[in-house]
């Protein structure tokens, strides 16, 4: 394994440890007695003592932290104080919905954003660029949950084109599954598409003015080869990074989108947990999100080094 990757792994590990400490400390920062918070409605002394026992609240914080980490590492994220269900089961049930939604949104945003960005860069100073820029500006400015409401109001309720809410698992009925997710994915992808479009346009303009593009033109290549092969390949490197950086916005967006379309995903779990003051679930949700963010960004960096040979080989030497 290359030095660069080791370095990235090390950085990610440090961030993950810090994130765990933050989550741990966050729960201890709950107002009042954490046992009271963790107990929810059930506040008789007996169950409070049980909770203190279970969470080791009477131990030193170092012991508590160790307990927390070792349980989390084993996949034991505690029980919901509302339903008594194991939290990891709840998360495992909700995650596939969110992952599918996010992947679809990234696909939609990638196709629209890269396409519009390339057009804007190539058709510089023409109406097409103006239109693409205007769309991107709108995409950045529109609140996507409002766009979702409008889509439900006018596309689903009035025209009946899409289901307004609900979810069908992919393996139950793939067609119905996609039918339910197309609209939410498009709504979730709007902001990302705008960001990708702007980034693609800017890096395409950089690439198009690069010396190697002049070389490609001097070789007599077709505009398709010059733009689609030589310029785009270099621009995509930047776009991949952007997707990694936008992951946080995507996760936030997914929470809202799920709420609007009543999708039983991670976002719904999160919001419900906050309103029910289901602290073990909140703690787990925050921890899982941070871990996912760190791991996915590590993967994006690995992907980056696959696309860009300069990084790949620099690491080897």
């Amino acid at each position, binding site marked *: 394994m290359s030095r660069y990757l080791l370095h990235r792994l090390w950085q990610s590990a440090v961030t993950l440890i810090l994130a765990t400490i933050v989550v741990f400390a966050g729960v201890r920062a709950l107002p009042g007695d954490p046992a009271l918070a963790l107990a929810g409605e059930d506040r008789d002394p007996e169950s409070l003592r049980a909770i203190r026992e279970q969470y080791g609240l009477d131990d030193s914080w170092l012991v508590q932290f160790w307990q927390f980490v070792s349980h989390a590492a084993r996949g034991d994220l505690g029980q919901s104080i509302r339903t008594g269900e194991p939290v990891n089961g709840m998360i495992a049930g909700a995650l596939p919905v969110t992952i599918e939604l996010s992947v679809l949104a990234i696909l939609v945003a990638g196709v629209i954003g890269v396409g519009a960005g390339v057009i804007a860069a190539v058709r510089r100073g023409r109406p097409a660029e103006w239109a693409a820029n205007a769309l991107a500006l709108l995409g950045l400015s529109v609140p996507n949950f409002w766009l979702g409401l409008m889509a439900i109001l006018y596309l689903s309720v009035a025209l009946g084109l899409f289901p307004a809410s609900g979810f069908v698992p992919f393996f139950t009925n793939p067609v119905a599954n996609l039918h339910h997710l197309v609209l939410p994915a498009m709504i979730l992808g709007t902001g990302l598409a705008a960001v990708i479009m702007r980034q693609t346009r800017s890096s395409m303009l950089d690439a198009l003015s690069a010396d190697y593009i002049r070389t490609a033109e001097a070789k007599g*290549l077709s505009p398709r080869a010059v733009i689609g092969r030589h310029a785009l390949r270099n621009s995509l490197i930047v776009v991949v990074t952007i997707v990694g950086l936008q992951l946080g916005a995507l996760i936030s967006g997914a929470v809202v989108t799920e709420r609007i379309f009543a999708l039983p995903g991670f976002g719904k779990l999160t919001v419900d947990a906050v309103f029910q003051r289901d602290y073990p679930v909140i703690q787990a949700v925050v921890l899982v999100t941070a871990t996912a963010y760190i791991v996915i960004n590590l993967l994006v960096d690995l992907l980056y080094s696959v696309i860009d*040979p300069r990084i790949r080989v620099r690491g080897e030497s």
Partner: protein
Amino acid sequence: MSSVLEVRDLSVSFRTEDGSLSAVDRVSLEVGASEVLAIVGESGCGKSVTAMSLAGLLPRSARVDGSVRLDGVELIGADKRTLRSIRGREIAYIFQEPMTSLNPVFTVGSQIGEVLRTHLGASRQAARARSIELLKLVGIPSAERRVDDYPHQLSGGMRQRVMIAMAVACDPKVLIADEPTTALDVTIQAGILDVLRGLRERLGTSIVLITHDLGVVADLADRVAVMYAGRVVETAEVHELFAHPQHPYTTGLLGASPAAGRHADTHRLDEIPGLVPTLSVQPDACTFADRCGQAVDTCTTSQPQLTRSDHGLACWNPVGVS
């Protein structure tokens, strides 16, 4: 001598926010078969713009007038498709910056092969085999391995050899080398010049050599055109020019002594005091008059025209005549 490339009254101007800027003004050049024509001048004199305009490589903001004929075929005003079929196949380019002129994300083999596949319809395997041959031709050791390298794995000199291999892949009639050695160490320059010389001898390629380095000119060129502020001010056979420079600018280039000749290697152009005038509309005067040590009254009232002879000159008061 029949010309392979014939340039007549080539003018280039750029549209900018502040109006039109003239970059090249009625330049005429001829390049014979397997001849090396050097275009020399300071940076900003229009020599690179001239080179780029030959195969229509300038941006859209450029306006090009005049005539460029390649083997009798007119290139100015030719449609894009025709120009594309000529670029890389009949006119090929080598640029100054080998570091950035190759695409960093493709192997050198695929970048050379691309030319063969585009113009000759070569298969992937054939293109690769030919790429290895070409890399050998330009003197790259262990070409079989290098063909799969990415540009950043090669040194500057090696990259410039790759650029040359790519340029000569389709055996072009004219090779335009725009400052091919400027970005390289002196020790590596000689190797690149050897490669170019070899190509001219073995393949009979005509070369247009754009440079500001008189050492390179003396080393490789048959004829020289000296450009100043977008115009050719003197043109002659290389030995004639070095022995009898007549334009004060040329003598300035060659150093204080007109006899510097072949020993001019170390002289840089910026030893002439003053700056190249901005490329706005030229007044009715010799553009070099401001910097000229021997300007006379006529120089500031009338623009001298290039004489048509073996030793062409655009000057009212040439060196060593009065």
